[in-house]
């Protein structure tokens, strides 16, 4: 679908800040607040804006226990439906955060979140590798997130500029 300049502008601005105040956003795009709300609603209805989410650095939270693993999955595609059917069977599990069809030596890249390594391991051995089309799995646990969805997790650089300059 084709979007106009204002719609693209709005998407670019909220992509990294979903909580921005609509009055401020309207000023930035140079439209009325009412028009902005109509546009946002339209983009939401069209599922162009799928959901407003928050990027949380859970590693900083002591109470949070959890591990993330990325699993390379080799599968046998089925006649007629290709990879879509097996992908669907995988992405329906709530433990699964993302599923991508990949070029290269394996077919699906699956991200799993679990409370512990054991939990992830049993998901892979009991649910994932037992699927008919799955030929093999290789599980990689994430040890540390440096950057996620374009956001660097370590503290940002402070402003190093001199306070007043010509």
């Amino acid at each position: 679908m084709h979007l106009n300049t204002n719609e693209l502008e709005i998407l670019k601005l909220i992509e990294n800040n979903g909580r921005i105040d609509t009055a401020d956003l309207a000023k930035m795009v140079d439209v009325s607040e009412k028009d902005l709300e109509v546009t946002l609603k339209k983009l939401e209805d069209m599922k162009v804006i799928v959901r407003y989410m928050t990027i949380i650095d859970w590693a900083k939270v002591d109470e949070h226990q959890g591990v993330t693993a990325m699993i390379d999955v080799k599968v046998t595609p089925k006649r007629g439906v290709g990879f879509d059917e097996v992908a669907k069977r995988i992405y329906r599990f709530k433990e699964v955060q993302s599923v991508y069809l990949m070029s290269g030596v394996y077919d699906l890249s699956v991200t799993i979140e679990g409370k512990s390594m054991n939990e992830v391991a049993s998901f892979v051995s009991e649910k994932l590798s037992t699927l008919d089309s799955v030929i093999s799995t290789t599980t990689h646990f994430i040890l540390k997130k440096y950057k996620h969805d374009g956001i660097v997790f370590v503290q940002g650089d402070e402003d190093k500029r001199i306070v007043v300059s010509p």
Partner: protein
Amino acid sequence: MIKTSYLSKTVQELQPSGIRKFFDLAATMEGVVSLGVGEPDFVTSWSVREAAIASLEQGHTSYTANAGLLELRKEITKYMKRSFNLEYDPYHEVVVTVGASQALDIAMRAIINPGEEVIVVEPSFVAYAPLVSLAGGIPVPLATKGENGFKLTAKDLEAVITPKTKALLICSPNNPTGTQLNKEDLLALSHIIEKHDLVVFSDEIYAELAYDEEFVSFASINGMRDRTVVINGFSKGFAMTGWRLGFVCAPYELAEAMLKIHQYAMMCAPTMAQYAAVEALKNGMHDVEDMRRSYRARRNYIVKSFNEIGLDCHVPGGAFYAFPSIKKTGMTSEKFAERLLLEEKVAVVPGSVFGTSGEGYVRASYASSFEQLQEAVQRMRRFLENL
């Protein structure tokens, strides 16, 4: 012991920049929200920084050709062609300089004879008039008016031309007003330039930061290429201020004359920065686009917010400065800036430092994070309410 009397007359007569005073004051304070910064808030793109690191690893630590790396000059001419539809010969018509500031300096010195006048369109960047004086010329300030959105008109220009006038120095989009001249504006000026046989120093350092209308280079106007020195650089559009890298594009005779000064006074621009600039021109245009989009949104926000809190502000077409009027407060721009800094810890630059026609205005740079801009607006609202 060196006494003041030993100093050259030219330097003794030179006034220190009024910006200095505000820097000294603001630098001592804690918790200042600064709208006084004349440079991007972005750090140079990593790919550009990485190219400089790689150049050091490969041992590119020697001089380059006086005019700059040929590879860079070729990239510059390609850029001038694709962005502004201007053709320059990379072998004879481009000089890579230490910032646009040095480009201005060698341009002035190459062209001005003692006593010749250079028309400086004000409000203007603080260095213009001093650079004219240092080159032996006489800066003739030409005021533009807030009522016209600080646009220079052909009529205003013609009114200050004398038999001694040699050149016009112009900057669009402008620091500090943000005003951009479009094709019609430049065309109107070009007739006067031609009629009086003037040279144009066109400072196009903010060319990449034009938000509403397409940027047009003065040299691309019919008949202007052969009398225009285009001054540009990497500081603003590519967020590379600290690298000190600029360039001039000018017709052969002018470029050769500037190169003569450059080779004796500077030798060449920093090699590491030149390698970085090659990468910026080859692969950095997407980042420039992202930065432009970000500035545009912040410009819209700050200009609307200023008007809302009672500071009349025209919509600046480019650069990253808003130039609101503070005349309603009855204060001089210096008093306003000083009180705003002391009472609410917001730094802006008084318009008067950019020439007498800047009096009654302040320059507020919106090259700061959105949160900082919000905070600044809130503090300025309170400041105005408590007057």
